[in-house]
């Protein structure tokens, strides 16, 4: 047994060294992420900035880069918003079923099946979107056009193939459901029993217990989950390219066949036949998307922080 608090030098050195090495490793991993991101940004900037100011013929109908990218950006954001509106409530619903509503016997298979969804390749989502989902939605779009045509979103004319931005949004939603669900259900399930029981013992119904004990505890995880889903929705390439009938300009009409493309799908569609100049333009749009995710995350963080501050009063 050691006689001094400052234990034998070797032991101390060992533990100190272990701690130093480990914390350095952790730090380097964090910095590696920053470096990777910086590298991507620099790459986009170097290859893309010349694409900002090309002669007008590089920008199709538009006369300059901003005219070219605006509808793409609009399409990206619109599709992602539709996806979030559809996916977030569904995902949280499923996550709650799995963590708090269904008995284990039912919850495990549900969770499992939803996880499978994450595995389906984009291409297959695209194929399914075209061949199964879109035709099923066509009658609904026709109905909306007839009965809700006065709402700008359903102004029509309804697409006869169903390959609209709403369909693309729904496909995106299905793609991000597993991501949002998986993380949400983990954080829901991790709520300490102690807090749940505190709520139940106050005579809370299950829903009230969720509100009192689970949601506050899980909030940061729920936000992360949504942000991950949003990221994927913004950046998804192939499924959107395959499902969306793109080529239109900015329009809030969700059910017509003339829709704005998304930035990522536009890159994928046009990269392959592109000449060097055209590719610079495409990469410049990638740079714009990058900056947009930056801003969206900034905004989300700001909102979260504000609500946390309000909570702390």
């Amino acid at each position: 047994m050691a006689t001094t608090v400052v234990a034998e030098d070797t032991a101390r050195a060992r533990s100190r060294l272990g701690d130093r090495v480990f914390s350095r490793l952790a730090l380097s991993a964090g910095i590696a992420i920053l470096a990777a991101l910086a590298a991507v940004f620099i790459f986009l900037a170097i290859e893309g900035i010349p694409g900002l100011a090309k002669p007008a013929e590089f920008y199709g109908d538009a006369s300059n880069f901003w005219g070219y990218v605006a509808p793409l950006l609009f399409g990206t954001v619109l599709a992602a918003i539709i996806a979030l509106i559809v996916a977030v409530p569904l995902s949280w619903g499923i996550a709650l079923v799995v963590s708090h509503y269904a008995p284990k016997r039912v919850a495990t298979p549900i969770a499992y099946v939803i996880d499978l969804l994450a595995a389906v390749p984009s291409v297959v989502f695209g194929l399914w979107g075209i061949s199964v989902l879109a035709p099923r939605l066509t009658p609904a779009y026709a109905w909306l056009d007839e009965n809700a045509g006065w709402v700008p979103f359903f102004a029509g004319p309804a697409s006869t193939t169903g390959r609209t931005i709403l369909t693309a949004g729904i496909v995106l939603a299905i793609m991000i459901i597993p991501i949002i669900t998986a993380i949400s259900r983990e954080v829901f399930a991790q709520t300490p029993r102690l807090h749940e029981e505190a709520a139940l013992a106050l005579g809370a119904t299950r829903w009230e217990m969720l509100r009192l004990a689970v949601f506050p505890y899980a909030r940061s995880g729920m936000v992360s989950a949504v942000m991950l889903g949003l990221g994927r929705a913004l950046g998804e390439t192939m499924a959107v390219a395959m499902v969306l009938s793109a080529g239109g300009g900015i329009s809030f009409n969700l059910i017509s066949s003339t829709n704005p493309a998304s930035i990522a799908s536009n890159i994928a569609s046009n990269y392959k036949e592109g000449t060097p100049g055209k590719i610079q333009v495409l990469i410049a749009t990638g740079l714009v998307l990058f900056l947009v995710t930056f801003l969206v995350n900034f905004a989300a963080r700001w909102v979260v922080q504000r609500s946390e501050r309000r909570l702390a009063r």
Partner: protein
Amino acid sequence: ASNETGDTGTDSGSSETSGLSGDLNGAGASSQEKAQGAWATGFQGMNDGNVTVNYDPVGSGDGRTNFIEGGVSFAGSDSYLNDDEGELTAAKERCNGEDPIEVPAYVSPIAVTFNLEGVDSLNMDADTIAQIFDGKITKWNDPAIAEINADVDLPDTAITPVHRSDDSGTTKNFTDYLGKASSSWSYEAEDAFPVKGGEAAEGTSGVISAVSGGDGTIGYADESQVGDLSVVSVKVGEEYVAPSAEGAALVVEASPAAEGRADVDMAVDIDRTTTEAGAYPVVLLSYLIACQTYEDQAEADLVKGYLSYIVSDEGQQAASEEAGSAPLSATVAEKAQSIVDAISAG
């Protein structure tokens, strides 16, 4: 995998065995992918499975870039090299200052295909097609269509024109046809479909699904992929011609060479307004791009062997079987053969 052992395919039926070995890498037009698969198979069989041909179907533009940068030994491209962005010059540089070889390899008719309940076939002239895709004709029973198809009972369905959403050689060839053969198409021939609106779909298979997924749809796609869908017979001279391999090959043969090209460059400007009987001018012509000399003997042998197999009767027949393309006509094939046979190391 168990099928990759070297001795498979000795009974491939190929008449000659060139005894080459090694890897040959190419990249480019996705339209050629299936045909490349057939060619690679035949070429690998000729060499007893000692050769592997890789073809990345990354798209014509990227294929050309890859070739120019030296990433691949040959490229497949739906359009010939030009100097709008200096690609021709760059390709020349890549080939040690010699003119790059461009030979036609893959010819395929582009079908104008539609899905309209109760109608199996229609005749149209270039003007009508142009106006449909321009959004000027919006109903199937429009007089312009009805006039030509007197014996067809046309419904009052709206027309949904389907075009490619991605940049594509098919679009470029199709719009080139519309621009040259009709008076009502005011857009340039381009990889990107120029008209706003209408339905857009990704890739040939996307167009096919969109056309078959809606009623009153009409689109354009590689004829081999049309399957059960109805096709439009296009007016050539005074006849209405359905898309066919022979018709496509005929047009390529009859088309004038592009101006100011080197001897080894078989780029042609397709004659969209031909009136030759049986010719079908809505065709896609895809080229192979390579160098005349390669520094490495093995690479030169492989490129030479592969390209000459491609333009050979056997190669063209294989592609026709596998991808449904139109075999090159004898004269074109002969000229191409002589060009690729001159590939050497230097």
